[in-house]
């Protein structure tokens, strides 16, 4: 007997992500799913962003890693609420893992929640966690061919931060080409060129993020 099903395989995760989203909505909380390959600078960007916006907003962080709590310890030094998820092998965070952290937060006390996903340019793009939008980092040393090789993440992201621009003079990589390649895959990307090391370009990112949090709060 043939059964017609026609169902999205990720439906169960999408449903949980939607439920998470409904909970975030109640607190008018802006939630960002931050993704990149390992070592592109997710935690460094977070540290800088927390320093810059901590006086304006209450920020919370969920750290996703396969193993270790090093990232959560770095964030905890900023004295903000942070929860570490160790996926124990899984290459991405999913809606369920995020839901399990809810008891650790008081969402009404927060304005911005950043979910730092597992370092991986492929899998995290496939799983929603209940975020308002996905933001990704591509660091200059990774090269301009990455958007064409890993199109899904670039396609799914609203924001692209090109990090480590201070290294550009030492590498055979053109930031202009990087932007061009990324925009080919996703013409709607908002792009920031930054260096978490020197601080260059970060003010534009902070201003944009500030507006996003404020718009979310007044929505």
């Amino acid at each position, binding site marked *: *007997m*043939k*059964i*017609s*099903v*026609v*169902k*999205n*395989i*990720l*439906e*169960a*995760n999408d449903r949980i992500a939607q439920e998470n989203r409904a909970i975030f909505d109640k607190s008018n909380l802006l939630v960002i799913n931050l993704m990149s390959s390992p070592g592109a600078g997710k935690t460094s960007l977070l540290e800088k962003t927390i320093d810059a916006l901590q006086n304006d907003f209450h920020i919370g962080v969920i750290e996703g890693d396969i193993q270790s709590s090093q990232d959560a310890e770095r964030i905890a030094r900023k004295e903000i609420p942070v929860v570490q998820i160790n996926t124990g092998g*899984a*290459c*991405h965070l*999913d809606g369920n893992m995020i839901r399990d952290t809810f008891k650790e937060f008081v969402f009404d006390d927060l304005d911005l929640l950043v979910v730092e996903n597992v370092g*991986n340019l*492929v*899998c995290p*793009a*496939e*799983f929603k966690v209940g975020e308002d939008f996905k933001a990704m980092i591509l660091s200059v040393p990774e090269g301009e061919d990455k*958007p*064409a090789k*890993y*199109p*899904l993440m670039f*396609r799914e992201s609203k924001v692209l931060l090109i990090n480590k621009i201070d290294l550009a003079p030492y590498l055979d990589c053109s930031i202009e080409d990087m932007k061009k390649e990324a*925009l*080919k*895959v*996703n*013409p*709607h990307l908002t792009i920031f060129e930054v260096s978490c090391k020197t601080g260059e370009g970060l003010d534009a990112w902070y201003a944009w993020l500030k507006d996003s949090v404020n718009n979310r709060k007044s929505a």
Partner: protein
Amino acid sequence: MHEMSIAQSLIDIIKEEMTRHDATVLRSVRLHIGQLSAIVPQSLSFCFEVITSGTELEGAKLIMEVIPLEGMCRECKRAFEIKDYAFECPFCGSPDIETTAGQDLSIVDMEVD
């Protein structure tokens, strides 16, 4: 790499549908794998085999069709295949296109007894 989670979700849906239809044997299941989804069919097939081995689903065939990326231009309203992940209209060059196929990962039908 995340094919194991996908295979697990797939099996959850299969079991749910089999219970609903009072089926006990799964012969085959057909999937549509969008070209943009980051799934490697061989890996998914391997994970499916690993999870089902020794269970009542063992031996079921996984039939996978890769669905090419297609788009529709919001400017000139023409439909086309999106090649080389270049998300712009090949006719008028507009980047304002809607992806109409090739993004999803879905189960289409299954053959059961």
